[in-house]
């Protein structure tokens, strides 16, 4: 509907502003004709250059207002459209999101319906969609501001809030933002397109309509010619685009190869090894000794203990007046302890957040983190280096506290006694409490009643805190060795990496080309390695194309004899009527989509071959079985190279047979007749005369068949096993994969874990394939041309 409206609008604009100029220009022409009429017959025939000038003028008159009006019209129209288009796109995005997450409700709902859904149906969200959306946006906002803080403080990006990494909320938010961007993009695109369309239509209409009649045909023909010529340029543009995209991504592959950390043992020259061996080990050791991320692990527990201690102290302060002294002293002691504790360093909230994020990552710090945070970390860790003081402080606090408690208890009892003695109110609880209230009128009633309890609890807290400290110390002692080992491992890896970086900084030719050495190798190991010893990201092109050539060989072994013989029968031995049936039948074979062949191979030919092998294993003569067992063959699985190659051969038969037949048919008849007249038989004339005369054509056809077999994907994809790894085996009964299947796997397969290297690799393989087929094709063209030159 909207599209229709848009088109209608444009049509109106174009119509109005091309009819106008038409009228103008015809009037001009009439006026000019009138004026010219009296002057010269030559001008009246339009042989001067004036009409062209007026034609161009009229075109400008037509196009400019058309464009302007289109701009204005769309400017009014687009903002109204924006909302609906955006919602449309968001709806689509939602649908895919929901589809991906399989929430269990209808993915075909619109955005508005989604907002209206009752919360009960949104088990995942747990609230109404509107709330959820708002909450999502809130979370996303928080996340973004946190991320901004990280960026502002120049912290490493690994410290970015986790909502940026995982978390559905931001995904969702991302989706919305992206959808909005897409929608806006689309609006802008459509605006531009509409303007361009308006301009083109205006141009064509006015040039066809408003140019004086007698010039119209010439202009029409010229325009048509230009259009035809540009159509023929499309082929070359396609080829250029093909080569450029593939080449560009191949260059990406090269860059990837030059910069990527290959992992595993680096094969560095000696000078490079010497160079990075000088890296200071003690520095790293110092880091590892200083930073124990495990210290932060029981952060919460320790913090809560301290908080409780605070509360106790505050309560105590609130209670006593006569115990004020001791409380004061113990508070000071506590303060000392707290100040010495690593958990009360007066950290800023950012620093605390950083610590939390470190904790969330399991306490793992990157080396860069450590380096950047070194000042901060040293400040953090300094108190830990005074463990003895801390212990002593604790000890003092404890003894003081015990003494103070006893003292306070004694004082209190004494005080009570004195009060009782003075007032003589023995055994009367009410009066006692009244006395309390009188005496401690300014203090907290409840606290005073629970003083004993509080003191006990305080002791308990202190002992708890003590235990926590001891536990932490123990843990630290255990962990420190492990941590140092980890840091050393990290250091070793870093050393490797740094060596590579170092290696990279020196623009040595070896650095520039080592990827090439890897590329032309038999190693194929896409993706990162699981352990440090394994190689990773090795893309050996020989391994990749091994399967292509193996399966191609099988297919040619099948296709060449069959195709040649079929062509020989059709061209030499068959009647005309039979030929009229046989040729289309062979063409049917060529017209069948390759994926059908794939299924034929997997579900019909493979079981047949399999059962044939089983029969052979069971029922043949002993010595054949011995040979069979001696051969490195296994019992064939359902997917095997042999079957894929065979069926690909079937597919190639018509290519070979038809080219062969054409080549045989175009051998000059005089040659065949001459051979026959000399007494040769049909087969002799075929093999000794015609065949050689037709050889270039036949070879050309075979080259085409080879390029076809190299580029074939689906048969192998379905029938030979779409394994992600290259298989270097001579066994035709094993699974096999080809270069094209590696591409198809990367984009059509389920797994997506191999990283960007494989994307580049796919394009690189594509480039190699393109070059291979181009060379083969040029060779075929060359051969066929030579053939033509000789016999025509």
């Amino acid at each position, binding site marked *: 509907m909207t599209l229709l409206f848009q088109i209608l609008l444009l049509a109106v604009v174009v119509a109005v502003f091309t009819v106008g100029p038409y009228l103008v220009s015809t009037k001009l022409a009439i006026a000019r004709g009138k004026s010219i009429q009296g002057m010269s017959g030559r001008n009246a025939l339009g042989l001067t250059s004036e009409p062209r000038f007026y034609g161009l003028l009229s075109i400008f008159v037509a196009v400019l207002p058309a464009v302007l009006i289109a701009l204005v019209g769309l400017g009014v129209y687009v903002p109204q459209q924006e909302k609906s288009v955006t919602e449309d796109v968001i709806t689509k995005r939602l649908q895919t999101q929901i589809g991906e997450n399989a929430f269990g409700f209808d993915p*075909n709902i619109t955005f508005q319906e989604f907002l209206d859904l009752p919360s009960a149906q949104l088990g995942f969200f747990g609230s109404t969609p509107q709330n959820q959306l708002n909450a999502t946006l809130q979370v996303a906002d928080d996340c973004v501001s946190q991320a901004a803080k990280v960026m502002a403080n120049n912290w490493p990006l690994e410290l970015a809030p986790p909502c940026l990494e995982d978390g559905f909320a931001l995904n969702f938010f991302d989706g919305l933002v992206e959808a909005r961007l897409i929608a806006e993009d689309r609006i802008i695109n459509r605006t531009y397109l509409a303007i361009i369309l308006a301009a083109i239509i205006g141009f064509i209409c006015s040039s066809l309509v408003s140019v004086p009649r007698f010039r119209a045909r010439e202009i029409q023909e010229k325009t048509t010619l230009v259009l035809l010529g540009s159509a023929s340029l499309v*082929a070359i543009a396609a080829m250029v685009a093909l080569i450029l*995209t593939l080449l560009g991504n191949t260059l990406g592959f090269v860059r990837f190869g030059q910069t990527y950390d290959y992992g595993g043992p680096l094969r560095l020259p000696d000078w490079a090894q010497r160079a990075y061996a000088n890296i200071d080990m003690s520095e790293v050791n110092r880091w590892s000794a200083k930073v124990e991320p495990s210290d932060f692990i029981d952060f919460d527990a320790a913090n809560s203990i301290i908080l409780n201690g605070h509360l106790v102290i505050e309560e105590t302060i609130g209670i006593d007046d006569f115990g004020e002294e001791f409380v004061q002293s113990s508070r000071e002691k506590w303060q000392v302890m707290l100040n010495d504790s690593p958990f009360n360093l007066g950290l800023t909230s950012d620093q605390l957040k950083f610590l939390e994020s470190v904790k969330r990552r399991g306490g793992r710090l990157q080396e860069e983190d450590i380096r950047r945070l070194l000042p901060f970390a040293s400040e953090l860790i300094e108190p830990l280096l005074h463990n003895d003081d801390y212990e002593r402080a604790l000890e003092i606090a404890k003894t003081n506290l015990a003494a103070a408690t006893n003292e306070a208890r004694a004082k209190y009892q004494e005080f009570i006694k004195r009060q009782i003695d003075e007032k003589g109110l023995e055994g009367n609880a009410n009066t006692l409490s009244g006395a309390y209230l009188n005496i401690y009128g300014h203090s907290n009633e409840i606290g005073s009643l629970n003083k004993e309890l509080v003191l006990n609890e305080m002791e308990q807290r202190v002992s708890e805190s003590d235990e926590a400290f001891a536990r932490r110390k123990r843990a630290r002692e255990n962990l420190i060795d492990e941590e140092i080992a980890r840091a050393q491992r990290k250091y070793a890896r870093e050393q490797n990496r740094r060596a590579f970086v170092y290696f990279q900084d020196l623009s040595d030719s070896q650095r520039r080309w080592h990827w090439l050495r890897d590329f032309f190798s038999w190693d194929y190991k896409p993706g990162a390695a699981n352990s440090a010893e394994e190689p990773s990201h090795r893309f050996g092109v020989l391994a990749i194309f091994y399967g292509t050539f193996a399966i191609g060989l099988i297919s040619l072994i099948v296709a060449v004899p069959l195709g040649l013989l079929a062509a020989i029968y059709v061209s030499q031995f068959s009647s005309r009527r039979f030929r009229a049936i046989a040729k289309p039948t062979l063409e049917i074979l060529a017209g069948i989509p390759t994926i059908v062949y794939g*299924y034929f191979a997997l579900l019909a030919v493979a079981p047949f071959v399999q059962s044939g092998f089983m029969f052979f294993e069971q029922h043949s003569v002993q010595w054949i079985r011995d040979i069979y067992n001696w051969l490195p063959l296994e019992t064939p699985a359902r997917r095997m190279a042999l079957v894929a190659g065979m069926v690909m051969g079937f597919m190639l038969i018509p290519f070979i047979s038809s080219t062969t037949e054409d080549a045989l048919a175009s051998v000059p008849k005089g040659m065949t007749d001459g051979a026959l007249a000399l007494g040769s038989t049909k087969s002799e004339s075929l093999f000794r005369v015609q065949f050689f005369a037709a050889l270039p054509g036949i070879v050309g056809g075979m080259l085409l068949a080879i390029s076809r077999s190299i580029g074939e994907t689906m048969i192998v994809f379905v029938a030979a096993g779409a394994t992600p790894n290259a298989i270097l085996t001579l066994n035709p009964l094993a699974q096999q994969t080809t270069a094209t299947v590696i591409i198809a796997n990367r984009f059509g397969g389920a797994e997506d874990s191999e990283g960007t290297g494989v994307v580049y690799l796919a394009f690189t393989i594509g480039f190699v394939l393109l070059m291979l087929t181009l060379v083969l094709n040029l060779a075929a063209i060359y051969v066929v041309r030579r053939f033509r030159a000789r016999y025509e």
Partner: protein
Amino acid sequence: MSNFGALKLSKRSARVARRRSVDRLLAIVSGSVLGFVALILVALFWDVIDGAKMGWKRAEITVEISYPDEPVLYNSGPTFVTESAGLLRPREVRVESRRIIRDALIGNRNVYDPQIVLSIEELTGVKQSDFNSRSVGLPPVAATYEGQIGQLFIDPGPYFKARFEANPSLAGTTKPYSLAFSTDADSYLRGFRSILVDGSGKIPGSRLSPFQRLVLDRLIERNNVRKVWNWSFLSNAYPQSQRVLSGIGPAIQASLLMMLIVILVSLPVGVGSGIFLEFFAPRRGFWGWLTSIIEININNLASVPSIVFGLMGLAIFVQAWGPIFIFDTGLATPIVGGLILSLMTLPTIVVTSRAALLAVPPSFQQAAYGIGASKMQTIFRFVLPYAFPGILTGVIIGLAQAIGETAPLVVIGMVAAEVTMCREGLLCLEDQTPALPTAISYFRRFMDGDQQMVSRSYMTIIVLLSIVLSMNALASNIRGRVARSRQG
């Protein structure tokens, strides 16, 4: 001497006979090769037709359904569950639909069809009254049986809901309704085994409970089960939670859309460049060199592996052209697939249209020039109509190639798309859709041990093959007819 001559003659004749026998041998061998090729073709078609035979029909049963008094019973929320990452979550059979099915099959207070109704005691040993005492609350055993009966059929709940929404006066009435059997029940009823890809088989209906098998056996005995043509295969979307119902509607739609794009893009461009190269292209100098490069390029374009076109499409149409293109050229969209396929079809159309234009007798052009036509008029009014059948043949062959092309569509991700039908005209060009050939490989993923899915795959192959082969036949028919008319 004469003896010697005769000997020589006989020797020679023996040699000639030997030489002739090579001829015979060659004829026999090459003829049998041709026979072998024919055998392959027959085997292929036989395999396809045999593999698809299960999908032609599906089982149905017509029952009298009593619509309940309250339409609101069915309004129990959306029930669609997607199949994501190969994980199949069977749709819950709604209680209301279950009850209706059970009522229809076993009989209820106001509906009783003696033709269909099964005796509940005969089936289960549970008393009829237990089943009908719904208001009191079903005994657990009966509830289980009700659920099991419900699982035998495809949930008609959405249908009832739609009917009610359209016509609320249906409440309380009784109407005949064709209940479709669920996948497992269908397989059991039609006696097909689930075949695993590695060749091992399963007993039919092994996923059904003994009670369910008993119910189905009774239904077969009473001759109530009908087998109907599975037309919904052509219109339904996939995946469906019930595999019986999954179809290739969107795939057909997308393939047709892509064909439309191929026609719109590569027909004008191909025929235009054919005309240019044949009639206008300069042959000398720099421009002549450029012409020969274009010609070689067209030749090369024809031999580029199709998957490489897919890579190019991915890089240009999906990644680079996104911001300046009118459509959202995302992954797996028909617009991108169509553009890729039209680039692939281009060389075929150029080459065939050039051949067709070349085949026009020069006398035609000369006559046109003779009556004062310009070159352009000659070409567009005389040569092109004459060459039209030849061009049409080339276009049809190119389209037939394009519709069966799989690899580039795999690269742009069409193999992974899961969709429902698109009903919004042009916007379908921007939706992620599978095409026919990629639908084949999509069904393959779900083939694990299920002959239903294998047959779906083969049926898609049949649809594809029949389109491709009929296009090829049409092309060769046109070619033959034109050749005959021009000879005669």
